[in-house]
């Protein structure tokens, strides 16, 4: 029993002796100075990093803003160009028929007569004029306001 106790005691002593190595471990000389030096170095490094990061951040912001502005300008140019083209587009040529019976329609619209128009007796269209010698003439009997100078008709006076 006492041999067992001695053995246990011896084992405990070995364990304690080994653990005591850590309890008595002495840090290298000037450890505190080296810690402070590293802290100062890291603080300076962190400050420089912060400044760089801020610079990069603002540079990135500028780049993003410039890109967005350029994209916006491109869009404005394209949209403006399209709008301009639409405004200049001429109406399609052809006959515009107003819907019958609606009562609406432009003056320029083509009006189709509801019944056939008879041919005039003189077989001339109303717009046909006879001009002598290519000059416009006014008959003598034509009522003219006073003071209006018109070329004299070359037609012989009717009896």
């Amino acid at each position, binding site marked *: 029993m006492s041999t067992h106790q001695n053995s246990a005691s011896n084992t405990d002593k*070995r*364990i304690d*002796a*080994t*653990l*005591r190595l*850590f309890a008595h471990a002495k*840090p290298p000389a000037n450890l505190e100075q080296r*810690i402070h030096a590293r802290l100062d170095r890291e603080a300076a490094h962190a400050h420089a990093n912060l400044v760089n990061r801020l610079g990069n951040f603002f540079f990135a912001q500028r780049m993003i803003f410039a890109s967005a502005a350029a994209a916006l300008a491109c869009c404005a140019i394209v949209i403006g160009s399209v709008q301009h083209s639409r405004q200049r587009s001429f109406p399609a040529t052809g006959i515009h028929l107003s819907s019958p019976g609606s009562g609406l329609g432009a003056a320029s619209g083509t009006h189709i007569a509801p019944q056939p128009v008879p041919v005039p007796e003189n077989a001339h269209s109303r717009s046909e004029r006879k001009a002598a010698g290519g000059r416009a003439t006014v008959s003598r009997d034509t009522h003219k306001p006073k003071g209006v100078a018109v070329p004299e008709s070359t037609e012989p006076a009717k009896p």
Partner: protein
Amino acid sequence: MSSFEAQVGGWFYTQPVLKTRDVSEIITALVAEYSTTLYRVAYSVTRNSAEAEDIVQETFLRVLKHQGKLDEIRDARVWLVRIAWNLSLDRKRRSKARPETEDIADLVRTLASAERRADEEVISSQEHARVLALIDQLPEKERQALLLSALEELSTSEIASICSTTESSIRSRIFRARRELAELLNKQRSSR
């Protein structure tokens, strides 16, 4: 990082202890007060002096990064040890691929003889390395409780806070760890 912030959030305090002081002054005070403890925590996991120092520096860099929350920290020691422990575990996991570079033999050699007890004199660095190898075989929770309990600066309640558990749970974990370690040592001794 989000888990880290959640971890930081867990230590928010309703009655701020650290406030109205300049952040750099606070960090300077924290470095002066806790750098040795953090070094020991990191060293207990990595067992490499350079890596332990790097972890301590990394811990204070985290503090600098979260300086806005400094006045809301309830227990700075617990918070810092927790960060250092997690960083040490990460470092240990990443260094699994690399060959082990433990400085235990150097530590045993350089440890002042005044700090060592008479019974330790007979224990060689090889034996320390053997015990440490067996500690590495312990389950994660037991190992953490055992290693943190080795640090005199940390009380059981603080270890419980670091491990997010109760004091009784920590005590039972330490007990189980020592028992398993003793069994492994006895098994190893009997096999030789």
